[in-house]
């Protein structure tokens, strides 16, 4: 089915609002399990507050967090689907309309290159002044064009890390390093419990792309053996919700391992997404 420009704008707008305001059911269920299992009273109180916040935000379609995030887009294209420049324009316009509707925090910085670095160009008062990150494009098996919208906040970006790991021909070495990075990052974040995004690739670009794909594909009720190990080991650190100690530092881990090269090094990206992330929703545009 071919959709009109206006239809795509509307679909993208509404999907962005959903991403910024709702917990998927598998995430709500993960929080309920965590509340039941948490032994620390204060930690349990924080988890209950986070879940109640999600209920209010979902009901009112209002922001989960005042840092409404930077839109990150993953676009999947099926076998017979044609992606046009006009469609990309409609997606961009839909993102802008979604940011105004949510409403997104007006935190886009104006000015030239130098002014945007030191913030001297001032804030754009329009929520839509927050431009999306470059689109990640990938093939999908279904014959559709599907857009995933993820809203990435500033705190996790500060604590995320992409760097090389010498694997010594032992996967456990890489897992140990991921756990070390994650413990440090979750401890510093302040907005735990986290959902960890992990990408393993051959370059920084590829590792970060794998991390983004991991969030697009990840589910709280389907965890691989490596994902479960990372979650369990970080939770043993007793950081807890908001860093107040407890059993629940990480709700889940989403990990994607890309193609690797014949080399002693792996490039690893770890993003400690905050208690509300990944703020994500998807829509079929064809």
């Amino acid at each position: 089915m071919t959709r009109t420009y206006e239809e795509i704008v509307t679909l993208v707008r509404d999907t962005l609002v959903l991403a910024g305001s709702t917990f998927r059911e598998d995430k709500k269920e993960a929080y309920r399990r965590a509340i039941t299992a948490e032994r620390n009273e204060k930690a349990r109180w924080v988890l209950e507050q986070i879940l109640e916040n999600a209920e209010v935000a979902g009901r009112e379609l209002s922001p989960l967090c005042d840092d409404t995030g930077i839109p990150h887009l993953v676009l999947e294209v099926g076998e017979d689907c044609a992606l046009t420049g006009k469609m990309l324009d409609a997606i961009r316009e839909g993102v802008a309309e979604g940011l105004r509707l949510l409403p997104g925090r007006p935190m886009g910085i104006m000015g030239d290159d130098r002014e945007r670095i030191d913030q001297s160009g001032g804030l754009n008062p329009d929520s839509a002044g927050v431009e999306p990150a470059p689109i990640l494009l990938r093939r999908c098996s279904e014959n559709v064009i599907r857009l995933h919208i993820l809203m990435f906040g500033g705190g996790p970006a500060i604590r995320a890390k992409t760097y090389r790991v010498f694997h010594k021909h032992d996967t456990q070495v890489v897992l140990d390093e991921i756990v070390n990075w994650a413990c440090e990052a979750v401890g510093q974040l302040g907005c735990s419990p986290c959902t960890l995004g992990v990408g393993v690739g051959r370059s920084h670009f590829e590792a970060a792309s794998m991390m983004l794909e991991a969030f697009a594909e990840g589910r709280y009720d389907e965890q691989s053996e490596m994902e479960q190990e990372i979650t369990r080991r970080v939770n043993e650190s007793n950081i807890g919700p908001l860093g107040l100690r407890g059993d629940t530092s990480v709700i889940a881990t989403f990990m994607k391992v890309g193609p690797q090269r014949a080399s002693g090094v792996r490039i690893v990206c770890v993003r400690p997404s905050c208690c509300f992330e990944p703020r994500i929703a998807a829509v079929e545009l064809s």
Partner: protein
Amino acid sequence: MIELTTPISEEDAAKLQVGDTVELSGYILCGRDAVLPRVIKMIEEGTIDDLGVDLRGQVIFHTAVSPAGVGPTSSNKLEIESSIAPLSKAGIRLHLGKGRLKQETIAALEQYNAVYAVIPPVTALLGSKTSEEKVIAFPELGMEALHLIKVDKYPAIIGAAHGRSIYDQDI
């Protein structure tokens, strides 16, 4: 659950202990990285009365105020944490934010009978508990200007009081 209403009295501030769960109501100030150094400068220059707000017994919430709502930013950012001691000396009794503070900041809180409370970043929930907002000073900073908002039962946990920190002990 301890209910606190601004202005917070010296007696009520002194009773607060690390780990206490509180509900905060009344008018509170909001400011973060950009504006707090300017407020400190007003205190140093003796012009703080120009704000038109009595700081004694007040609360400062480390947040921006935007159409997206409010939510705590990290209180251990340089400009924010360095404001805690002078603002406490000027009368602020509760600093609301998130994250671990330095020991010297915790000592300053004790010195001036002030406390630090951690508030979950629950923007939607806080929106349902916020009824008024206005800019008090430095409007050119936009969402980072000094704001005054009216709140009803904001949830928080006392994170530092009487020289102790919630981050350094089991609760």
